């Protein structure tokens, strides 16, 4: 299997053959699925279309979650952008607004692409589409970047985990951020080595992040962590493209993330029994959703 080798070796192959990680991932998918380049690309074009839809729905009108806990944040923030009230510049604020939109669409039972998971579905579209917009990237270039992101996701999934229940939020939102950072880096002309540096720094920045959803729902704090992930991804791509190296290589970082995830207690891994989920406010919100009446003394 094309990804059963060390990242160091993979980077060596990519540099020698003058291949991008995206191109390598696309070719390995063709080989594994026995599909033509056109078929695989057109499947990815469907993915991109769904991402774009999810990234805009929540900005155009307020979207409310099924539980009623959250909603309308992408719309609020988009209004701040439109009236030039945001502190962040255009790219960063676009990435936030699109990431919020995808996550809110997800919580409202809209259609999203789990990338790699539904809970982290806003990070790759938010960061990638915002960066692509600034540099007027074509759909063809964005599609290749999605293959770069997939390559990083495949490596993390095979060497560690992509699931919050197994590794905490660092494994879900952290992985999505690493995927997005590498994708942007490569789309903007970075080398495979720079792309992996971007991914490594992205993971390092959220190492140890726990999965502590209020009421067990993919809303609080997940939606805002998607916004934060999108910003982190662009930051890391920017650093790598500027030539800032990651002193801890990607593969070591992935292994460290996995071990940190293993050492987290169960309460902090998607069980809603720790972290924000059990704060007084978290418990109040949970009781509201589950219809539990507060106990009177």
């Amino acid at each position, binding site marked *: 299997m094309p990804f059963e080798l060390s990242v160091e070796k993979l980077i060596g192959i990519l540099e020698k053959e003058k291949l991008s990680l995206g191109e390598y991932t696309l070719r390995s998918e063709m080989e594994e699925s026995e599909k033509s380049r056109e078929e695989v690309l057109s499947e990815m074009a469907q993915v991109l279309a769904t991402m774009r839809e999810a990234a805009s729905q929540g900005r155009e009108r307020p979207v409310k979650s099924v539980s009623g806990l959250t909603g309308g944040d992408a719309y609020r923030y988009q209004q701040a952008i439109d009236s030039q009230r945001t502190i962040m510049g255009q790219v960063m604020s676009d990435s936030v607004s699109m990431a919020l939109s995808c996550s809110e669409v997800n919580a409202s039972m809209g*259609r999203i692409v789990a990338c790699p998971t539904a809970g982290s*579905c806003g990070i790759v579209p938010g960061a990638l589409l915002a960066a692509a917009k600034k540099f007027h990237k074509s759909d063809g270039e964005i599609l290749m970047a999605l293959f770069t992101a997939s390559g990083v996701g495949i490596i993390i999934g095979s060497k560690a985990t992509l699931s919050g229940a197994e590794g905490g939020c660092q494994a879900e939102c952290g992985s999505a951020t690493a995927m997005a950072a590498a994708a942007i880096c490569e789309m903007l002309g970075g080398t495979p080595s720079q792309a992996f540096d971007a991914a490594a720094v992205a993971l390092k920045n959220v190492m140890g992040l726990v999965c502590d959803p209020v009421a067990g729902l993919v809303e609080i704090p997940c939606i805002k962590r998607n916004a934060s992930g999108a910003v982190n991804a662009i930051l890391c791509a920017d650093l790598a493209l500027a030539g800032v190296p990651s002193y801890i290589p990607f593969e070591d970082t992935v292994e460290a993330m996995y071990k940190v995830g293993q050492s987290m207690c169960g309460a902090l891994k998607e069980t809603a029994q720790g972290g924000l989920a059990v704060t007084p406010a978290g418990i109040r919100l949970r009781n509201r959703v589950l219809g539990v009446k507060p106990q009177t003394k």
Partner: protein
Amino acid sequence: MKKYGVFDIMGPTMIGPSSSHTAGAARLGKMARYLCGGSVASVRFLLHGSFGQTYRGHGTDKALLAGMMGINSDDYRLRDAFSIADAQGLQYSFEPADLGDVHPNTVRFEIVTKDGRQISVTGSSIGGGSVVITQIDDISVYFTGENPILITKHKDAPGIVSRIADLLYRAVINIGNMRVNRADGAKTATMYIELDKPLDKQLIDEIRKIPGIDEVLVLDVGMEGVNHAL
């Protein structure tokens, strides 16, 4: 080492919010629908563990019901499952329940078909939208629906299993996994065969014609979600 394809990472494309509690639930509903032959009059959903606690917020209830009506996990109609079911006259209820020592995301479907048959199907959503059916009526099974499944109910007599295997061999279809169950003292056996590629209609008809076969069902919830037996 787990093996991932590109579209395991960039996907699935699904109605939110949760791959296990929504997309996986829809898939379980669809499998239960196929297992009971597709014409459902009423269904009672017994929801275990996390399914029982969070089903409203995750839309697990809508997803399960949508699946029972053949709606896919990426179809917007999933959100309107209640009104669609009401319009079809399909009766349904949801109850949190303790199903014992099972996966936290487990549901039992208690189904009554339009021709009055009762069938119970139990399955779990085991992460990332992957599911497994673990029980049909009182028979333990284990299949994921990733490969087509052939299910037969037949007379418990020598030779029937080999006739089926022979037909599959002639059609160059590999058997990945198989299991024959026979309830104590019963004269009927149930067989589950996991195949590595779909069966065509002609082959299903030939299997039906084998003397002693009472019932043939094909479960194929791959990309197309086509059930050739219906």
